[in-house]
């Protein structure tokens, strides 16, 4: 049976938009492909909404779909040409101008794209404000494993940042 009607929860997806968009940005650096992936995520959410049992968990449910699809889509070790270094972003951080925010965001997503997917996911979820238990439930791993992955992600992040700084000098 064809069903093109909107689910009643679809209007509430708007409230999850920033979180979903950030998740997509973590898997794709190219702006055009980001929008394409975002559409794919929205389509999957659209199709999955009838199966959501607890409307209170809409964000969790939608983000799980976004991370699953993002992982399938991601290009490993992608790099944007001319992405800014953390140092450059850091110096401009207190400046509220759009340019410095742009540089910092660009650095963050560039460096995220260089993390292995299993480490990237936990870091993105932590940045989104999820605790260990929630991350474990979303990813289907133990809370201990979340801790291990986060530790490795941060180590790698520091290492990448140091490499970038040494490259500049």
């Amino acid at each position, binding site marked *: 049976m064809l069903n093109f009607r909107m689910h009643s929860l679809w209007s509430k997806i708007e409230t999850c*938009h*920033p979180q979903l968009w950030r998740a997509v940005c973590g898997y794709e650096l190219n702006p055009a492909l980001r929008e394409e992936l975002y559409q794919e995520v929205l389509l999957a959410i659209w199709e999955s909404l009838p199966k959501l049992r607890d409307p209170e968990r809409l964000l969790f449910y939608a983000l799980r*779909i976004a991370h699953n699809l993002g*992982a399938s889509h991601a290009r490993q070790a992608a790099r944007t040409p001319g992405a800014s270094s953390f140092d450059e972003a850091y110096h401009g951080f207190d400046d509220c101008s759009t340019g410095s925010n742009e540089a910092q965001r660009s650095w963050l997503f560039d460096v995220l794209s260089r993390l292995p997917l299993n480490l990237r996911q936990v870091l993105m979820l932590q940045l989104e404000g999820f605790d260990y238990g929630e991350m474990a*439930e979303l990813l*289907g791993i133990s809370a201990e494993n979340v801790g291990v992955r986060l530790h490795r992600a941060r180590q790698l992040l520091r290492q990448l940042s140091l490499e970038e700084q040494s490259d500049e000098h």
Partner: protein
Amino acid sequence: MNIEDQLRAAWNAESGEHLDLASLTTKVRRHHRRRYWQRAVEVILTVVTMMLFAHALISQAMQPAHWLLLPFFAIFLPTAWLLVLRSPRLETEHATAPTTVYAQRRLVQLKTSLRDLRLARRSAQGLLIYSVLACVGAWLFGDALWRETALWLLTFALAWLVATLLLTRWLGRDRRREHDNLRNLLEN
């Protein structure tokens, strides 16, 4: 501000406010509708092709074209099914599962799909070998009608092989990348 706060601030600064949600909803609705019709067209095309060939087999006397083109249809239809209808479409229940479960299920799908692509390449190569042999046979023992039909078969087989190689290479690259991504997800 420490590095944690900086990372979080940079993360939260990306809010996608430039996107027009109304137009995205329209696109999603259109995409959703297109998927249904695409599936319907695939099924209709396959049924029509099978009916045409079955009709030719049942209603007419078997001519050289039928004998020679029989393997083409025997290869063409299963390969088209493998490539199009058995492509690893994302199932809704897979996408909503915890990531490790999603990765495991999707890996199984992708492995099957990569095997199907290999099978499609082998069958296209097999068809070409058959058509070359048929061509040689028709030239040695057949009349003008057999020769013409065998040449047509060879042309179709060559075109089919080139198209299959290009398509499986393109699909295989994407599916292998996704396969590697998901395998990476399952590592600790």
